[in-house]
């Protein structure tokens, strides 16, 4: 059983724990309960970095809630939509080249990885997970040859799994960089019909910019 003084120390230290963006956002939107708000208020009194983050967030929320859309804004957006082809033609959902399957293996893998990165869903809610973790992202190449998924583990770490039935990929080395984390992995045979590899993203790295990802052949 935990000693009372240890628990009390933990309680005291809670106010020193930095706030993440979702907590700050929930506080701004008045979505936190009394104890959650109390912790935010106690922490920002101590930490000018989180205090500043809160100020910036309030500035953004005020801009959104007090929005006045002018005719110039409408014209600006319409011209942008024309320029970019609107939202439907976003590169992340473009179709693969018809010849992709015929490309040499190395080039095909590079193409798979490029599309995988384009489809990376970068933001994951920091919520509690079940015993087995929870899949928060998954992707499969158009030809079904390569799959990837991200699992949020119970301890809030994340694991990204890669697998393929393309046995020639056995031994292929890939560098995964996610914000400040950079890790080289090797696809290895795990059964007669599958090669696989995985990357562990510890919680402390997950606090970084999860949109900043690159996956490249070494």
């Amino acid at each position, binding site marked *: *059983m*935990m000693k*009372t003084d240890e*628990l*009390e120390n933990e*309680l*005291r*230290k*809670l106010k*020193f*724990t*930095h706030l*993440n*963006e*979702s907590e700050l*956002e929930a506080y701004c939107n008045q979505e936190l*309960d*009394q*104890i*959650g708000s*109390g*912790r935010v208020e*106690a922490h920002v009194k101590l*930490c*000018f*970095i*989180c205090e500043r983050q809160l100020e*910036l967030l309030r500035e*953004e929320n005020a*801009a*959104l809630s007090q929005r006045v*859309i002018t005719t110039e*804004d409408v014209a*600006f*957006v*319409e011209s*942008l*939509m024309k320029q*970019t082809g*609107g*939202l439907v033609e976003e590169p*992340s*959902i473009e179709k693969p080249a018809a010849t992709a399957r015929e490309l040499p293996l190395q080039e095909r893998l590079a193409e798979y990885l490029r599309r995988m990165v384009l489809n990376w*869903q970068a*933001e*994951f*809610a920091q*919520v*509690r997970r079940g015993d087995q973790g929870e899949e*928060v992202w998954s992707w499969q190449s158009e030809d079904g040859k390569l799959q990837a998924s991200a699992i949020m583990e*119970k*301890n809030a770490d994340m694991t990204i799994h890669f697998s393929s039935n393309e046995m020639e990929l056995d031994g292929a080395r890939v560098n995964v960089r996610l*914000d400040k984390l950079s890790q080289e992995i090797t696809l290895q045979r795990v059964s007669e019909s599958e090669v696989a590899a995985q990357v562990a993203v510890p*919680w*402390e790295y997950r*606090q*970084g*910019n*999860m*949109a900043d990802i690159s996956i490249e052949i070494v």
Partner: protein
Amino acid sequence: MTEDELNLWERHGQRDEAGQRELILFYLPLVDVLAKRIARLTGADWQDLRQDGAIGLIKAIARFDPRHGAQFRSFAKHYVYGAIFESSEITRSMARRQYEIYRKVGRTRDELIQTLQRHPTIEEIAEKVKLTTGQIRNAIDARDIAFPGAMPDAEHMPASRPLEWPRPERTLSLLDALAQLNETEQTIIRLYYWEDQSHEEITQRLGLTISNVIKIRQRAIGKLRKRLK
């Protein structure tokens, strides 16, 4: 997400062009505020930055999936900042310079925590690093541009005492357990542990007797301990 936002996302899901335009217009003020923030730091023309930022917003809208339960605003900021950052050398060099200042501030803060045995104020750090508080705030703002989403605890967790920071699962459990306490218990916990008030001060604030305050605090600790077993 507000109901308005959810309706817009629903229309966007149906590939309704007018709905898509409304969605971009809905979030355009966010691009404006971010572009103006960078313009303030760099001296660049905010209207130029707005153009790049809005393209980032369009990409974010195309890639966002509301079913994941994340907040679009935080998601979009990465793209808006990223688009501005990528398109402007002046922004990149400013962000790098400011980030160096930010790191210096972070190191000084950690040193002062050790010396003072408490968190230093921004003024104390400004004096130590010979910068103005405005310059430090600029560095914090710029750091958010160069490395959006990175949180200070991951980066500035002092290597000498990493175990002092609770793991997130533990923090979440503790916050969950705290949320189960009744309002008076929560108030007493907050005042006693986070606002460093004495039992006497809490007594005056809540109009309870001192023995009651002590009893309620101990009962709350008991409940927490039971829940965290």
